[in-house]
């Protein structure tokens, strides 16, 4: 028996959320005023939660590491946000969005959570419109939609190629209104470095003021983690430079289980790595695959000449081009889901058909759609992306195909939460990309923004009341309690330790090494031997890190190297857990591909008999093996089938 209680409500799937809302407790306005909530992160999830909780009357303290809440990495989302509005009359519905999400996640998500997500999705669009989010409109003035990979309806709302920016600015404006009104106290340039628990309940945090270097204590009746994903464990990813796992990781070390860390999304269309000095990777939106054809040369000698720069892509005749996605997946073609497209690109490059000097790129060609639709149509659809591509690569995608390669993009895994979004620590919640909840083993495009805002606007403000109703007698948390003093001491000791190693190697070198190990053995194709090797190499890296790290500067001043050192220390530990989880899950599902578990023609093979569960890991000490708890996934509504895109 598992000790995990997911608290999924009784009743048929479409009634669960209503039933639950009817049953959970509500806090009176007078009592809300006495309660404090800490929200870590001001991305879509955190900003929407902080604003909504403050509107309800709670006292909120919100934190972000940037100089403004508006800069959270949600700002970078391009494509759009899904909602089951059925404005297009194309037979979309809550059920269809629910079904697509569960199927897209390769049957590794929790049905009840996903259904609720689909249920509240229409409210998100209404809310954003009311805030003044300038969504794209049709000539008649109504909201416009586009479609995204893996679905048959048009349900994606967008604001040019800057949907994340506009949604975040909407949530940010709601947050600003509350900051101005005094309901939210905003702490920018503050990094959470520990969670404080008292009698097993979350009661506050320790944060470092990134300007003065001061270590501070903050108390609250509940703590909400909305700190985003951990993609940067791979060093190179489409995440922002500062994206980190530390807030989630300290919670893990304080007893919050971490679920499905090996479920990582690799996006097929990113600008390839150039040289060894690159600091991050840039995404080229999934929407490009609507009009671009993916190919590599058919002949090895052509690939070789391309790599050496002897010929260019336009020198290769159509007959000598291998449109491998169209060849392998005739029915979905270039629009297969992200995981499938990524693996197919890797397969071609591994076989020697890569087209850039590193041999790690394939072509995404717009020649055919320009011929068919004209340059101006393509320009209207993708102009800003083409411009971005040209600025980075100095190549004109109107004249020659783009080079693309898969890159780490999103993390489906995260802190384990129950139906109320509460972690295994009472009073500690996790929302947005930081939790593991809704996307199973693979996330569909335009669904992360939906989930972040669903959690923050429409789920957490209800479910947190159920817990806080029991806390109304608890006075303001005293941050002079021994638990706070001890946690603060722990943080100071940890930072001093990093600072005092005084070795010879700056932190980025370790981060890059970790990234190499992760990408090599825990990337797109994983096997037991490689994963075992990864675990060993990561452990060795950890030893080296604590022997040879060099952190310059001062503790009590702005010190980005110290910040990075703390984050990388956590990433090293998380990397090991990720590899362990991948080793344990001897099946292929969604973004997790185990070489040992595939069909004869090399496609992913799920193993429902043995792995239809959430793997929730419990920390037992840095040098000890974590304990695996299984939450069995029960599919009452949707029938499990093997995905096929042939």
């Amino acid at each position: 028996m598992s000790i995990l209680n997911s608290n999924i409500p009784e009743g048929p799937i479409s009634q669960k959320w209503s039933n639950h809302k009817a049953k959970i407790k509500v806090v009176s306005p007078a009592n809300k005023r006495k309660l404090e909530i800490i929200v870590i992160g001001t991305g879509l999830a955190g900003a929407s939660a902080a604003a909504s909780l403050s509107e309800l009357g709670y006292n909120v303290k919100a934190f972000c590491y940037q100089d403004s809440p508006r800069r959270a990495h949600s700002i970078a989302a391009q494509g759009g946000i899904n909602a089951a509005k059925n404005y297009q009359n194309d037979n979309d519905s809550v059920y269809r969005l629910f079904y697509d999400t569960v199927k897209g996640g390769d049957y590794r998500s929790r049905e009840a959570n996903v259904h609720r997500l689909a249920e509240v999705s229409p409210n998100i669009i209404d809310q954003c419109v009311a805030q003044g989010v300038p969504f794209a409109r049709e000539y008649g003035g109504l909201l416009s939609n586009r479609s995204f990979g893996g679905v048959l309806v048009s349900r994606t709302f967008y604001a040019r190629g800057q949907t994340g920016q506009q949604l975040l600015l909407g949530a940010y404006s709601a947050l600003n209104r509350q900051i101005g009104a005094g309901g939210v106290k905003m702490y920018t340039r503050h990094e959470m470095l520990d969670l404080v628990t008292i009698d097993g309940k979350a009661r506050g945090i320790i944060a470092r003021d990134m300007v003065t270097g001061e270590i501070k204590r903050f108390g609250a009746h509940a703590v909400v983690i909305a700190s985003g994903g951990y993609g940067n464990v791979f060093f190179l990813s489409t995440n922002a430079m500062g994206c980190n796992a530390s807030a989630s990781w300290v919670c893990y070390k304080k007893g919050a289980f971490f679920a499905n860390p090996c479920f990582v999304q690799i996006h097929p269309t990113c600008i390839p790595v150039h040289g060894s000095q690159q600091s991050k990777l840039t995404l080229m939106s999934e929407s490009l695959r609507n009009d671009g054809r993916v190919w590599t040369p058919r002949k090895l000698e052509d690939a070789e000449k391309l790599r050496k720069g002897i010929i260019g892509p336009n020198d290769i005749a159509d007959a000598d081009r291998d449109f491998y996605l169209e060849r392998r997946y005739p029915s979905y073609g270039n629009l297969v889901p992200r995981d499938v497209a990524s693996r197919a690109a890797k397969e071609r490059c591994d076989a020697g058909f890569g087209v850039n000097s590193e041999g790690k790129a394939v072509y995404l060609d717009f020649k055919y759609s320009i011929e068919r639709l004209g340059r101006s149509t393509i320009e209207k659809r993708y102009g800003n992306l083409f411009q971005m591509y040209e600025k980075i690569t100095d190549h004109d995608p109107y004249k020659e195909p783009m080079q693309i390669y898969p890159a780490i993009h999103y993390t489906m895994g995260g802190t384990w939460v129950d139906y109320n979004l509460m972690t295994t620590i009472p009073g500690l919640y996790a929302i947005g990309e930081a939790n593991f909840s809704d996307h199973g083993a693979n996330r569909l495009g335009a669904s992360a923004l939906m989930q972040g805002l669903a959690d923050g606007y429409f789920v957490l403000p209800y479910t947190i009341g159920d817990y806080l109703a029991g806390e109304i007698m608890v006075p303001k948390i005293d941050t002079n309690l021994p638990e706070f003093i001890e946690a603060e001491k722990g943080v100071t000791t940890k930072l001093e330790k990093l600072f005092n190693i005084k070795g010879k190697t700056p932190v980025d070198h370790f981060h890059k090494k970790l990234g190499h190990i992760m990408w090599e053995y825990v990337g797109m194709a994983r096997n037991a031997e490689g994963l075992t090797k990864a675990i060993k190499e990561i452990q060795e890296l950890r030893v080296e890190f604590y022997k040879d790290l060099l952190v310059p500067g001062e503790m009590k001043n702005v010190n980005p190297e110290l910040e990075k050192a703390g984050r990388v220390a956590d990433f090293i530990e998380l990397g090991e857990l990720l590899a362990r989880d991948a080793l344990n899950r001897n099946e292929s599902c969604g973004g997790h591909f185990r070489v040992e578990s595939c069909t004869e023609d090399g496609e992913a093979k799920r193993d429902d008999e043995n792995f239809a569960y959430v793997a929730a890991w419990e920390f037992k000490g840095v040098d000890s093996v974590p304990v695996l708890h299984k939450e069995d996934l029960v599919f009452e509504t949707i029938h499990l089938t093997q995905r096929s895109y042939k």
Partner: protein
Amino acid sequence: MADKILNKIYVKVWRQNSPKAKGRFETYTVENISQGTSFLEMIDILNDQLILGGKDPIAFDHDCREGICGMCSLYINGHAHGPDTMVTTCQLHMRRFNEGQTITVEPWRVGAFPVIKDVMVDRTAFEKIQQAGGFVSVNTGGVPDGNTIPIFQDDAEEAMDAAACIGCGACAATCKNSSAMLFVAAKVSQFAKLPQGQVEAKRRAKAMVAKMDELGFGGCTNTGACELACPKSISIAHIARLNREYLVAKLSD
């Protein structure tokens, strides 16, 4: 095609250890930089060199490195966000620089944006302006269906043009008066173009402009320098709209 290599460049950068400390320029030599490298990656390389040489690395703001978060800043060779057009510093590449060139790197020089360290500045003033009125006063829940009010496509597009502002501060840093007018206008204009923004239009324009003045940003004398420096090409037409909104608000006082 491989990018060309810059064998040697000189980076002359503002160093200031804390807000109150006295600042100065220091010049460093950086070797062997591929022109395909981004400007900030070049700074990363320089910083690595500084750390290995036992020196303090240069503190600078950055995060997304794809031109959307607005965190990066830097005044490079006399231009906010450097010599390229319509890009942020993080999107600037070394192709824009030549062999042997000296590249001068300074922080935003705006009174309302004090230096924190080196080329990192404090833009909290922008936050305060937004908190003064950059929102529509709706609570979560209880709002009408998204399609209840049709919006002219052109209006939605114009609102989007304005809403594209990333809050970087280049406009104020470029303006000889250190005015934040373009930044304020972008927000006021976005809401002015949408029905949802109408109810509070007057209050918003007055509150945001008053806050801007209070925080010590200068007045706008329509030089248009901000528009040229803006990485998101926010048009000064929005300033005209803000002026109209402001006038209407004042007249109805």
